[in-house]
């Protein structure tokens, strides 16, 4: 993934390191890809809802660059902090978008970026805490052909 200066700036205060997920390049994402990525990230921990909030538009203004933001509620202390947040675009040919790594030094767990969406699909975010517990949020972002409002 190439990031220009503005996108890097847009990552926000809390983001420490962002890595693109290297999933095998397949033309169309199989459900298995998403499940596999989640299983690897959570290391089998049970996923609950809450703590992590994904902000995304209901309908993308431009599917090529959709702004999203993830925040995770956490003290961000040595005792309790967000270890990483994984973002998946379930309907993209390659669902892996990014994983943000955090540490107590991050201060807060907040990350924002812009992603490309091939079609209407669910964006899934999973936050992994330092104790291994995992939280999830997801939103449907619609990508339209556009044209007839008013």
């Amino acid at each position: 993934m190439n990031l220009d200066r503005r996108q890097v700036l847009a990552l926000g205060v809390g983001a420490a390191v962002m890595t693109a997920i290297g999933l095998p390049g397949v033309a169309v994402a199989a459900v298995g890809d998403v499940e596999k990525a989640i299983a690897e990230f959570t290391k089998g921990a049970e996923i609950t809802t809450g703590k992590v909030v994904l902000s995304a538009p209901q309908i993308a203004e431009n599917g090529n660059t959709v702004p999203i933001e993830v925040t995770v509620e956490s003290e961000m202390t040595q005792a309790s902090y967000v270890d990483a947040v994984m973002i998946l675009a379930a309907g993209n040919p390659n669902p892996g978008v990014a994983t943000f790594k955090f540490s107590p030094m991050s201060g807060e767990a907040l990350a924002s970026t812009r992603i490309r969406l091939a079609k209407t699909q669910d964006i899934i975010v999973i936050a992994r805490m330092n104790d291994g517990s995992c939280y999830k949020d997801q939103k449907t972002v619609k990508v339209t052909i556009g044209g007839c409002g008013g």
Partner: protein
Amino acid sequence: MISRREFLQASAAATAILGSGAVGNWSALAAKQAITQDQLLDFDDYGNVTLVHITDIHAQVKPIYFREPSINLGVGGVVGKPPHVTGADMLKMFDLKPGTPEAYALTYEDFIGLSSAYGRMGGLDRVGTVLNSIRSTREDRMILLDGGDTWQGSYVANHTNGQDMVDIMNALRPDAMTSHWEFTLGEDRVQEIVDSLDFPFLGSNIFDKEWDEPAFEHTKMYERGGVKIAVVGQAFPYLPIANPGWMFPTYSFGIREDVLQDNVNAARADGADLVVVLSHNGFDVDRKLASRVTGIDVILTGHTHDALPEPVMVGKTMLIASGSNGKFVSRLDLNVQSGEVKGFKYRLIPIFSDVITPDKDVAAIIDGTRAPHEAELGRVLGRTESLLYRRGNFNGTFDDLICNALLEQREADIALSPGFRWGPTLVPGQDITVEDLFNSTAMSYPAAYRSEMDGKLIKDILEDVADNLFNPDPYYQQGGDMVRVGGMGYTIDISKQIGSRISNMTLLKDGSSIDPSKNYVVSGWASVNEETEGPAIWDVVEDHLAHHKTVSIEENKSVVVHGV
């Protein structure tokens, strides 16, 4: 479908909580009796604040006919709830009698017959008279709010880049406005006009795309009758999707519920006793929003062109729907005490143009804006023997005229015409003038394209637009009606999901089924894509009328609707 009794209970309960029982007195206007200006303006002043709302004028400065929809379907949780009631159902729900002025104003029932009895509606000089009347006793307690879609929709607005509307609206003295079609004048022109206005152009949800920062004022505080009033503006959320985003590349929109909540909270913290959202979200979006964003007393809705004679309550939030095309003005008197609405009185004032005397000053400004264009405005292009209307979820006869013009003049198999909700009505026997044609087509991206599309793409387009209208979650609705189709019939099941609503696509000229892999010649207009090529749609329709002189268009039966 919600029964009249249930609806009354809901509305009566709200009324009881709020104290005053009055929600206008529509049925007091006696059936078929001559209406008088005094009757239309009659309103016993109430409380300490008066909100006056007008929206979606679409540059209709002169009186027009406007037939309300016969089909306006709700999906999800709002089936059969206002505004998704039409015709006789609407009369029953609001206890209105057929044949009365209010039945004519609010429904399509016997529209042709009643149009000759009650005449045209609207006219901003008549609106001026209504405002004068309200101001005569409530000047220091009143706020006038314009919900947007003001600067677009007529020949003169098109030729002056909206300047005629700016001048006329300035004479009506609004206290704030919000926006949608305004942006199709291009962002530089919007900025130029906004800089010239004496009142704010509010948009809590308009952000600078690059920096993700608020781009316009979001809230304006007023003090009226000792009450601190915050008005938060909400522009149409899906502007860059429903309209050409390349015309306003700097801005991003969206519903931005969290931003709105922050702005409402900030207004309360700043001492607002009353919080009003001046919205261009569309009614169903606002109904959902009212259930999720707290602290809003009144939402003045717009965009979907609904006219409702009573407020709709969502919890403690009151939703007002004031119609379109200058046909109505809403007056809402509120009794606000220690930061709470204790009671209200509401009237949706129908602007019967033959009954209300025009305000001379506003009329003079209107005449001035039209003077250089009068000859062209009145040029007759043809005549209609049937009712030509647009509003409704599926094809309207004015759109059929446009589609016929595209099919014939552009030699196409299939015509597509956007499901706009603006565009007034012509009654049988009326001449079709340049002004009439522009009232239904005037815009800044009118090119009538002609291109080949395969059957699959045509289906994808129909599915996409249908989901903008019938997605059960209002936040995914864009507020337009279904794309109008000429030369092709289809069946739609509105209860299905995207991808499976549309079936039985049939080419009307030979009765063949549309083949997903076969190419068809398609002509349409108002594409959001930059560099769309073709003659302006009004030229295409003018050529068509030059050939046919007189048109008569019966109701379109080529769309079959299921899942209602």
